[in-house]
């Protein structure tokens, strides 16, 4: 039976009705939505601005002003083996990025050799071996290590690692010449810097490996070592790889530690004990002084930054693709 109370009269558009109407509140709601959308859109604007700024100074520019690649050929930039944009050396300017690229690679390789294995081993320890109490001590220490500003690592490399670690070992004992500024000290501290990142990212993927896989391994008579190295690590391999790539990309972009510890002399060398200059260090070194606006030296900064941006972006995208594919497997 229906009573009059169950059948209210058709809703009239008035206060208390359920018909949607435009009030100050709905306007406010819509306004807030747009403001928040603008906040999120700012990140896109930033990306566009970065690309636009780099391209407009490096690749093409409006007529009175000349972009870098309108003054220096792309071929020279990528094949020339000298980088002397500020008249040093034989008094001639050469714009070949190879020495800077080689310097960056030297740093990346040494930091990778230090940071990646140690980071992975520490991650395996935290995920497979450590007691919860140990974890609660080690995790904050790793966070602290990751939070130390890079300039502090630069000082540490220049004032501690080179004179008290590298000089005694390589110069006094093995007889090599160790420059005051050298790639190895920079590479080691960059390795220390990326190690916590590798550790925390890898630990996340190691812990995401289902417990049933471990139990199956133990049931078949595996030792703890077998389970860790032959079951857990291979299952998490793609995630570990992604963390490695991300860490190396961080190493490529690392600036201050390298600028302080590894020197400011662009040279094409594979000797980690000699002075080098990375792409990032070049940028900081030129920009911290007075750069003549509109000069080729100034626009060369943008060309180097464009290469740097392209490399790190590619590595980041690859690592994200790997991570995304990996997540789909276990969830």
């Amino acid at each position, binding site marked *: 039976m229906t009573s009059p109370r169950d059948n209210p009269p058709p809703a009239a558009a008035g206060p208390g009705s359920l018909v949607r109407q435009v009030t100050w509140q709905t306007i406010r709601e819509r306004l807030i939505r747009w403001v928040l959308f603008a906040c999120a859109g700012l*990140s896109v604007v930033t990306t566009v601005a970065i690309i636009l700024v780099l391209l407009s100074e490096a690749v093409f520019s409006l007529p009175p002003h000349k972009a870098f690649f309108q003054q220096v050929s792309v071929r020279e930039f990528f094949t020339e083996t000298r980088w002397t944009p500020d008249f040093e050396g034989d008094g001639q300017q050469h714009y070949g990025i190879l020495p800077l690229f080689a310097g960056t690679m030297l740093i990346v390789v040494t930091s990778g050799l230090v940071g990646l294995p140690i980071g992975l081993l520490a991650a395996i*320890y935290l995920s497979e071996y450590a007691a919860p109490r140990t974890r609660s001590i080690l995790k904050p220490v790793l966070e602290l290590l990751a939070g130390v500003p890079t*300039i502090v690592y630069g000082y540490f490399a220049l004032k501690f690692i080179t004179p008290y670690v590298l000089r005694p070992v390589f110069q006094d004992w093995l007889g090599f010449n160790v420059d005051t500024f050298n790639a190895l000290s920079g590479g080691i501290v960059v390795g220390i810097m990326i190690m916590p990142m590798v550790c925390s990212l890898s630990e996340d993927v190691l812990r995401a490996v289902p417990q049933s896989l471990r139990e199956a391994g133990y049931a078949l008579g595996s030792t703890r070592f*077998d389970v860790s190295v032959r079951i857990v690590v291979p299952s998490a391999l793609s995630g570990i790889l992604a963390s490695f790539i991300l860490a190396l990309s961080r190493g490529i972009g690392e600036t*201050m530690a390298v600028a302080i510890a590894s020197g400011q002399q662009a040279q094409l060398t594979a000797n980690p004990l000699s002075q080098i200059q990375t792409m990032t260090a070049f940028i900081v070194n030129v920009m*911290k002084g007075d750069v003549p*606006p509109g000069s080729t030296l100034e626009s060369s900064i943008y060309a180097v930054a464009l290469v740097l941006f392209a490399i790190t*972006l590619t590595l980041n995208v690859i690592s994200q693709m790997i991570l995304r594919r990996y997540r789909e497997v276990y969830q």
Partner: protein
Amino acid sequence: MTTVPEHYSRRLAHRHRLGTVFEWACRVAAWGSVLVLAVLLIAVTSRAWHWLDWQFLTSPNDYEAERAGILGGFWGSFWLVGLTGLMTVPVGIGAALYLEEYAKPNWITRQIQLNIANLAGVPSVVYGILGYSVFIRFFGFFDRPQTYELALGFTNVRFHLPLGTVVLSGALTLCLLSLPVVIIASQEALRAVPPSLRHASLALGATKWQTIRYQILPAALPGILTGVILALSRALGETAPLAVLGAASHVDFVPGRIRGAGDLMANPGKLLQAPFDGFTAIPLQIYTWVNDNSRDLRDSVSAAGIVVLLVVLIAMNGVAIYLRQRYQQKIRW
């Protein structure tokens, strides 16, 4: 009763030995981080010890090691991080709110999300170049800087367009740099708020914004705060973008030329002038000192600067931990 063949038990023993060696390798790798941190702190503080005095903390920079101090850098960093926080926090939380609470999972949202993740990986020097081109050179639109004066009745604020190497340019650059970190951290905090809370609030008739304002934001606050402080402490330690902006290293004044609390009381206008004044920052000071010709500046004064930087960082993180615990106690679900 079956017996295990001898070569089996030998192999098992071998595997156990291997396992022990591996476990120790892992243990050394993990505890090595503690060792490295300890060595780093000891190496820096031992160098800094004799230079860390009241004079160092209260003097501006100087070419003489005996008279050099961190005051200009400290207040420069204070202004930089303060302004960065004022700009980054609302925008970052706003972006996170849009992505978590409003955005539909469509192509545009995925692109924005991907874009933020990529921005987080852009090297900080590139942000420096962006800041230099946009805030300092204004894309080269101006032939020479124009000076403007804003009359506010009680004081006049003078600024240039393009901005030039002032606190505001540095803060804007650091803001762009730290936005992705704040957004990602805030998103994680928002995602941790249980959906039942949203449903309950909406079911009681609250609008979407009321739900966010009175339910979701308070619940997500501890996580957001942690992310914000993390991002700001990274901004505090950033050197490369500021060096690329061309921030003068031998600045021997405090932004706004504020000479203490009494001076500020007499001329409150200096507070508004400070963002448009030149600056240096703690990490920039360290960088300058490390490159200096004077041995004392290079070895010891820079170490003293590092100690100040680390102490400020630890203090900021301490505040974060305190705030997180304080707010966490109030929430129960």
